[in-house]
């Protein structure tokens, strides 16, 4: 069915080309993401968000017909991501690329897009250095330091003077620890202990005991969503940390909207910082979620949906202005600002990364009893702090 559709569009494009020049050309966007395996959530969120955007804005960007081609890289798999990207470039002759959930996947395709000069919008992969690897990368998600440092500022403002950091022992965890610690100590806070936890662990009792023994005002954590985050939050509640006066500070990865409900009562009252909450109070966010529900009734908006939605906006802007000319397209989007469901955003012309508000949120139950990330404080216009050294 999809194949027939593709053929039809290709034929139409061919006929149109013969008949009337480039007036009704088709611009192709290849989307590489995980549509199967343990990380299939990302592919689904991306596709729903693109569908919602297309439902709102139509299939035309300026004079150009936009067509999306989806490819499944199955998870953190740089070889597969590279092979699929190559196939999209050579066989499908795409003019733009998008998606990329994982840092290694995005890094693997940098040489390809550089050589092919294809503008590429990263919807998620969150390590700072990615955008430095090719001038054709732009990113509409967030980076770990961008989220961690504002939380340190806020903690100081709340009178939190001492923390214990406990992060998962891998790249993003260490980025978060450094980002938080640097800002926290610069503002006069004290880190009593820095724990790096093994990545497979789901029994956090011992770490909670150790944190309790250090008796800080708060703990700071970065822990990937999924089983570890679930067990960590449970462990925080079960070990009576809140009663011992130790506040919970974390990045919003651990309680994103697709996993928030499963955390249950244990999550009530924890503080996280993140660029997007589904509970963000704006007309645009309400409309975005209503449109998402139209394309997929079971859809839940989270950071991946909004990364893809804003990424699609960037693609449409580039296609409308540049068509198939990559440099004209890049120029159209660098420095551009617009209102997103997450709030106001700008594509920083220097880092090609999104500058955005970071929100401090607290987990609460809304009127219908659902858990939400309620935004209680806004830190406006935060750039990617990972590169600004």
């Amino acid at each position, binding site marked *: 069915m999809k194949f027939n559709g593709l053929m039809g569009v290709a034929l139409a494009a061919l006929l149109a080309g013969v008949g009337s020049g480039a007036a009704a050309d088709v611009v192709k966007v290849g989307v590489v993401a995980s549509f199967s395996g343990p990380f299939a959530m990302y592919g689904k969120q991306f596709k729903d968000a693109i569908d919602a955007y297309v439902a709102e804005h139509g299939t035309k960007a300026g004079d150009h017909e936009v067509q999306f081609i989806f490819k499944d890289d199955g998870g953190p798999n740089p070889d597969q991501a590279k092979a699929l990207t190559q196939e999209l470039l050579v066989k499908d002759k795409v003019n733009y690329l998008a998606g990329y959930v994982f840092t290694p996947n995005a890094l693997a395709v940098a040489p390809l897009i550089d050589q092919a000069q294809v503008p590429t919008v990263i919807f998620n992969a969150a390590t700072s250095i990615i955008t430095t690897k090719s001038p054709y990368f732009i990113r509409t998600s967030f980076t770990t330091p961008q989220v961690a440092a504002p939380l340190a500022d806020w903690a100081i403002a709340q009178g939190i003077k001492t923390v214990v950091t406990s992060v998962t022992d891998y790249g993003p965890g260490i980025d978060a620890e450094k980002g938080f610690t640097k800002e926290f100590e610069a503002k006069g806070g004290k880190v009593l202990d820095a724990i790096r936890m093994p990545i497979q662990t789901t029994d956090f009792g011992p770490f909670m*005991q150790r944190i309790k023994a250090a008796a800080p005002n708060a703990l700071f954590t970065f822990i990937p969503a999924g089983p570890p985050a679930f067990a960590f939050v449970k462990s925080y509640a*079960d070990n009576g940390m809140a009663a011992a006066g130790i506040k919970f500070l974390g990045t919003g990865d651990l309680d994103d909207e697709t996993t928030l409900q499963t955390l249950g009562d244990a999550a009530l009252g924890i503080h996280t910082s993140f660029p997007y909450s589904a509970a963000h109070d704006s007309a645009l966010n309400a409309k975005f979620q209503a449109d998402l529900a139209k394309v997929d009734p079971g859809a839940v908006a989270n950071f991946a949906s909004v990364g893809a939605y804003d990424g699609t906006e960037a693609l449409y802007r580039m296609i409308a202005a540049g068509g198939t000319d990559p440099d004209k397209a890049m120029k159209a989007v660098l420095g551009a600002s617009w209102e997103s469901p997450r709030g106001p955003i700008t594509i920083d012309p220097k880092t090609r990364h999104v500058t955005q508000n970071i929100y401090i949120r607290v987990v609460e139950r809304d009127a219908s009893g659902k858990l939400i990330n309620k935004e209680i404080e806004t830190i406006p216009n935060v750039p990617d702090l990972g590169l600004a050294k």
Partner: protein
Amino acid sequence: MTTLASILMDGIAYGMILFMISVGLSVTMGLMRVVNLAHGGFAMLGGAFTHWAMAEAGLPFVPAAVVGLLAVMVLSVPMERVLYRPIYRMGELPQVLATIGITFIMIASVNLWLGSSLLSIRLPAAMSGAVDLGFRTLPTHRLYVLGAGVLVIVGLFVLIERTRFGIKLRAAVDHAGTAACLGIDTSRIFALTFALGAGLAALGGILGAELLPIDAYYPLRYMILFLTVVAVGGLGSITGSFVAALALGVLDTAARYLFPDVGTIFFYLAMIVMLGLRPQGLMGRA
């Protein structure tokens, strides 16, 4: 002193969870001699059915857990008849391949049915929260797991060592042909034992879900954990699995208290050392 007591308590609690999720494998792989890599699949199915019964059918925890347990045991009977009968007769490597295939089918089915997100099992108020022990607190849930673990090991010991069913089972495992000649219905014994193993897997999955949360990829995520416990304990020995689970639990917990940065290496070092000293496992039969 407090640290030592904390290590022992957290370690035993963790070890008991390891025991609960591994004891079913100790039955199927240890007693029945099938390399059943789909063990985690049965645990995951138990958790998935329980999650479904709570979230979709609105049952409270205890009836939902019973639904999960029974659903897995009922499902395991036709599976044993159709899938596992031929597997019993295969060599070890074909058994590994066949059961890992079954695991993938289970993962894909649950993924299709309930999606790839976490399948939470909310505990009743009586089982959540923490108990104050004076010098520290312990999650209430761990006390229940401790109790369940003791019940399971006593129950299994009585069943296998002290009942007619146990005698028949041991006879059927040692030599199916001779046992059949003596009038023992070996295929019925095997079907019942397999259902018992699957049921124990489901129970472990449900009770351990606080620490090892259920999702579609559960069977692969924790496969090494189950296999380690059974291998270190010794094939065919329930008591061995029990001792191994507690020892590994305490050791892993001690490492996390004292050297958190070194990670899970102690767990595997302990496995290598124990298997190096006793290749048959702690209580394995030579």
